[in-house]
């Protein structure tokens, strides 16, 4: 039995040690001129949903949960946020070429429709990020309308 104890003790020491290595946080209060609300119309109700359900991983400002201060969770979250922002960053939407903006709006509607986003592993813990049928419809309608109006400018 004692070797199990030793392994567990080593694990415990590693666990404590990694608590001291915290990744940089994704926090910025600055509103960029490239924000999506400055590029296309974002009604207040849409904005509210985006902020609660999407912005933690798709903007420059994450509302961190308490467990983010427990490692290795912070690394996992930092990695999720990095990927999320690379695929879509609402704060930098205006800097995308028009074609990419059109694609992203279509992708938003598709991902919500398919139930791929918000991620299951995220909504397990973030209860308020679970979208109701009505909320989904609001986002899908908005994204499709915004895409249509961009299509008119850039067919």
């Amino acid at each position: 039995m004692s070797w199990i104890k030793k392994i567990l003790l080593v694990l415990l020491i590693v666990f404590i040690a990694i608590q001291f290595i915290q990744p940089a946080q994704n926090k910025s209060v600055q509103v960029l001129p490239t924000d999506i609300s400055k590029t296309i119309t974002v009604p207040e109700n849409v904005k509210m949903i985006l902020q609660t359900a999407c912005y933690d991983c798709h903007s420059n400002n994450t509302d961190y949960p308490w467990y983010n201060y427990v490692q290795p969770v912070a690394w996992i979250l930092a990695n999720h946020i990095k990927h999320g922002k690379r695929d879509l960053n609402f704060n930098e939407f205006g800097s995308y070429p028009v074609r990419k903006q059109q694609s992203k709006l279509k992708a938003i509607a598709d991902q919500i429709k398919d139930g791929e986003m918000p991620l299951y592993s995220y909504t397990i813990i973030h209860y308020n990020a679970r979208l109701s049928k009505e909320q989904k419809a609001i986002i899908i309608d908005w994204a499709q309308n915004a895409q249509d109006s961009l299509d008119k400018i850039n067919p």
Partner: protein
Amino acid sequence: MKKIIMVLSAGILALSFTACNSTSSKQTNNTDSAQADTTNMTAPVEATDATPADAILTGYINMKNSLAADNGSEAAKNGQEILDAVSKFNASSLSPEQKKTFLGLVGDIKENSEHINENGDKIEHQREHFEMLSKDMTDLVKSVGTDKSLYLDSCPMYDGGKGTWLSEVKEIKNPYMGKKSPTCGAIKETIKQ
């Protein structure tokens, strides 16, 4: 003491599993199982250097045929084909106007190809990106030209009729519906006879 250690380790394990299940599954499919469904597929077209976009277009046409045959893992490979062709693309022969068009599209072409490449097991997701990629490719070809026969097809059954694609042949082989409705659609425009 032992109990505390046990509980803590269980905690660590639980925490490391909860948040990371989404990323790992994405990159698995590209290498194997491509031979599964080659019977009714067209042989891959060979690229020539006649026009700068031909290698990209070749990858795209192969992808269209893979999707029409409901073969997601082959379409994933074609995504890599497109990415390779884009990285080798020679923009030096383009006019300033064509260059501008290319630069406005290249990011989107790459991103859509990457998604198709990474989702060989989710063909409906691949088709969503293929729809966007088709739009990019149509604009690219219309700008830089091609000397191959090319038709723009559309299908009223997919995405409210917005689903278009480019085809090298006159007959309809629908990449969105696959075997469910292989011939749905019509030629919307002849880009090159």
